[in-house]
């Protein structure tokens, strides 16, 4: 069974797996964002039945126990998935969230997409078209980094106010 695990190191000048903080400039000032540490990208086997789930978890399990685990599961090869496979995905998500990490699904095969929809879990996961997109998403500026004090429409309304005054 083809199963490849590889690591992506996020964009930082120093490389390596040590944690490095990154500062992102926002309107409000600087926001500290952790971008370091490896992102684990793992390919899910073609058939995800009870036996395969056990084997797969033996490989993935230790990675989930790290600090702030960041995991991308590549579902491009999935052709069949039993309820045990869906439970495994939910279990992994629960584990990474417990440790302040995240799990994202990428390159879902049509079969995987249908099964996740069928089992009503497709909306639970963040999904991406490719693994690269999923990896890059870990590097995106989180919502809380953007100033929430001024509503987005404030400028528009200010302009409208000017128009009103003019009329």
């Amino acid at each position, binding site marked *: 069974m083809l199963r490849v695990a590889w690591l992506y190191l996020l964009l930082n000048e120093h490389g390596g797996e040590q944690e490095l903080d990154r500062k992102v400039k926002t309107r409000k000032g600087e926001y500290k964002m952790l971008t370091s540490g490896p992102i684990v990208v793992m390919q899910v086997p073609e058939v995800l039945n009870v036996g395969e789930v056990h084997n797969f978890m033996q490989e993935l399990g230790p990675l989930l126990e790290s600090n702030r685990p960041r995991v991308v599961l590549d579902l491009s090869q999935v052709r069949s998935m039993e309820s045990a496979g869906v439970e495994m995905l939910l279990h992994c998500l629960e584990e990474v969230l417990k440790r302040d990490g995240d799990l994202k699904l990428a390159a879902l095969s049509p079969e995987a997409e*249908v099964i996740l929809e069928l089992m*009503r879990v497709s909306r639970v996961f963040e999904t991406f078209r490719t693994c690269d997109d999923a990896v890059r998403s870990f590097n995106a500026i989180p919502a809380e980094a953007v100033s929430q004090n001024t509503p987005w429409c404030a400028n528009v309304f200010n302009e409208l106010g000017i128009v009103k005054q003019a009329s």
Partner: protein
Amino acid sequence: MLGAIIITDHSDRVQGRTFVSGERSAQTPWAAVEVLGKPPVTRLADALWEVCDLVSVIARPRDHVGAQSESSLTDLADECFANYIGKGCDAILIACCGTYFELDIASMLAFHQEQCLACTRAFVDDGPLDVWIVDPSVAPAYSWVFSSSACARSAVYRSQAYANRLQSASDFRRLVLDGFHSRCRLRPEGAEIKPGIWVCEGAQIERSARIVAPAFVGRNVQISEECLITRGSNVESNSHIDFGTGVENSSILPNTYVGIGLDLSHSIVDGRNLFNLQHNVSLEITDPVVLRESTARGRGRQSSADVESGMAVSSVE
């Protein structure tokens, strides 16, 4: 005297249910699959009984797929054809039932007699149908209609009648929806207990289940608590939709169990085989908790009147 021969299994001419990989239904043509309570081939036979003196249906049994070769079906058809000649039929209608059609057979027969040709073939807007009326005094056997001499000596009967080629899963779904919306003469079996909701005898629908029109619930179907059946879905005979599952714009073929808490949409399910029309993907679900073949229960303990009093139905489109 008019005789009719319907041949349901022409897998070399009709693309059957290629989406399924399971043993049960491989190569079963769509025309032999229950649609709103009755297979199209049975509906055709019923319609032919009104105008024909003799009707024979030649089919490969569902559980003998592969056991009989196509040639043996042809032999049976030839035998039937010879039998009709012996009984004095002056015209024989041959229908290779891969397509659902609503031809006016009486009008086609009148046309055939006017033309005085050996054979008349029916055509609809999008091409020829595998429906012929042949003159047995010219045609020696059933298989003659496929010969080049038959092509040379046949008249063309053009009709504007409704026809569905039933070549794919989406054709099948289209037939279901056309039946619901009265775009063809195919009417759901059972009683229309609310506008757009048909329920057949023996169906058991729990009080908290919700059926939204148009929808069809077949014979001895069990719909468990908190289920939702909606948007032109049909649940065919002896199937079971288990607790909390939603079925939307989907067809559940006979003897299918659909598990707990699922969200089934834009799909056709036949036992453990699922074809999703939106993603154009077929799956075999090996997990029996999710999908499986259900055994025919034949409960028949609840009449449709009982069903009406016990269920929550809505005729909201």
